[in-house]
């Protein structure tokens, strides 16, 4: 059997999630360098649009179809994937650094004993050895470390979402689909009782624009302006510094930073955030950054592409009005 690079695709609520296409883009780059087959693993039930994985770069799709695979369950995924990995012996397995990827990948790596690198922002192949070089931020983004797994296979990594553009969709691309109906013999010890979908908007990790506020906004009422502005910008979400989350202005799910979420949107807008290391760690890798702050010496300006020295409390209402006018 030819050698393979695997990407673990992600299916959320019955649809292939975009992180799958980003992983295929990384996987294509690595498998071309290694001259091996790129295979996408998809676990679901009655999944539509499987061809998309091929259009976005896969040579082969292994589609595991079973009613128990409809929702993510770490034990069931492990029961399906571990024997398959042992049999196919891929060189590399990539998954998204998402709640699914960050759960299943260490679970598998723990069971089969191999190296796993979390939250990679860059991947490459080492010359001569052909080993996977995995680069990731650590210690609050103060350091980047390149890590490899010299003696164990597969070499496993979770990859930070939105770090790489998917390839151009090519409907003429060749590829094969292998449908596998796995026997699932385990009695899962976990059961999903209920699911409360998020009511509106995209998740912070998926947002193309994140507008975040800090204590410079003075009070929760001013902070709510960020939500109003976010509604006017497509695919956007509201973030917050740790300070304002700790003060109870907004829920923890909005916190960006070392003890919150890591985001890398197209545009990150930091409003009234001074830019403590704690916060920078969660947003420094954004494609572009706008900072609005009264204090010209605020450290946030060091990471900003556009720094506005001015009063956020005056600027936000005007920005909101101008965006509303554009909508009309």
């Amino acid at each position, binding site marked *: 059997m030819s050698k393979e690079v695997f990407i673990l695709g992600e299916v*959320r609520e019955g649809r292939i999630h975009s992180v799958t296409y980003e992983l295929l883009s990384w996987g294509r780059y690595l498998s071309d360098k290694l001259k091996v087959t790129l295979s996408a693993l998809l676990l679901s039930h009655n999944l539509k649009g499987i061809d998309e994985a091929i259009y976005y770069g896969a040579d082969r799709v292994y589609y595991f179809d079973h009613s128990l695979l409809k929702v993510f369950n*770490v*034990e069931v995924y492990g029961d399906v994937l571990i024997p398959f990995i042992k049999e196919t012996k891929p060189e590399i397995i990539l998954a998204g650094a*998402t*709640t*699914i990827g960050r*759960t299943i*990948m*260490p*679970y*598998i*790596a723990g069971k089969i004993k*191999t*190296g796993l690198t*979390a*939250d990679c922002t860059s991947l490459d192949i080492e010359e001569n050895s052909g080993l996977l070089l995995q680069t990731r*931020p*650590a*210690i*609050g*983004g*103060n*350091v980047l*470390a390149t*890590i*490899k*797994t*010299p003696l*164990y296979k597969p070499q496993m990594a979770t990859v930070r979402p939105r770090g790489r553009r998917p390839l151009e969709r090519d409907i003429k691309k060749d590829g094969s689909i292998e449908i596998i109906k796995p026997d699932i013999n385990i009695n899962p010890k*976990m*059961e*999903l*009782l209920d699911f*409360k979908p998020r009511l509106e908007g995209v*998740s912070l*990790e*998926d947002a*193309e624009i994140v507008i975040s506020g800090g204590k410079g906004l003075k009070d929760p009422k001013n902070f709510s302006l960020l939500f109003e502005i976010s509604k006017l*910008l497509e695919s956007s979400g509201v973030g917050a510094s740790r300070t304002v989350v700790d003060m109870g202005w907004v*829920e923890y799910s909005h916190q960006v930073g*070392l003890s919150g979420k890591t985001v890398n949107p*197209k*545009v990150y*807008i930091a409003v009234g955030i001074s830019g403590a*290391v*704690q916060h*920078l*760690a969660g947003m420094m890798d954004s494609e572009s950054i*706008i900072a*609005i702050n009264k204090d*010209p010496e605020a450290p946030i*300006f*060091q990471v*900003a592409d*556009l720094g506005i*020295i001015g009063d956020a409390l005056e*600027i936000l209402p*005007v*920005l909101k009005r*101008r965006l509303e006018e554009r909508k009309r």
Partner: protein
Amino acid sequence: MNVYILVKQVPATDKVKIDETTGTMKREEMEAVINPLDLYAIEGALQIKELYNRDVKITAISMGPSKAEEVLREAIAMGCDSGILLSDRAFAGADTWATSYTIATLIKKLNDFSLIITGERATDGETGQVGPSLAGQLDLPVVTYVSKIVDINEEYIIVEREVEYGVEVVKVKLPAVASVIKAIGEPRLPTLRGKIKARDTKIEVYNLERLALKREDVGLLGSPTRVVKIFYPKISRNGEKIKVNNPEEAADYIIGFLQERGIV
């Protein structure tokens, strides 16, 4: 019911100092603290103690140099009952697999337990891998990103977990591994009684020999991964910094910036 929580001593990352000329971290100037996200693991365990309403014994476990005993005493001061430190020169340089393996070996030696609770991740390594890896090695179910403990009895625990697309309510058969996030609730402060107890409690120490482990299976030798190099990202973007005269001008700049990127 026995509950284990995992805690780690980390550099106080908020106060990281970088040497301007070399771009390296001034480690000697950094103090060590309990991983802030582990406080939520302790809080989760204390909530379980209240909810279960029967005898719950919470043991904090840490791996590190003997100095890491401090974080175990801190955990006891907050309400944990005892502490175990995994400490041996041979454990140094462990990656997440070797760390999980060492902890898994300890846990197999200890009494029966119902739950192992971890924080979401440590603020130094930032991997969040030890919880699920430990579950894999001990063949236990693992529930990650727990934001609320709904119910617990001797058979199972019901929790809410936050995922990107919503909130799941999950029932997990015990024993299990759970990693909790900050939404679990504000960690309580150490009590005076707790502090006295922390001072007087003897911390159990397990080394390589006591765990009957082989040197080649732990620490750097037992780690599948290797660090190839460490480097320091350039954080400066050298962007424009503009002092605006009025909010309209600020809005012009911001909208212009968004337009250039095809967003509005």
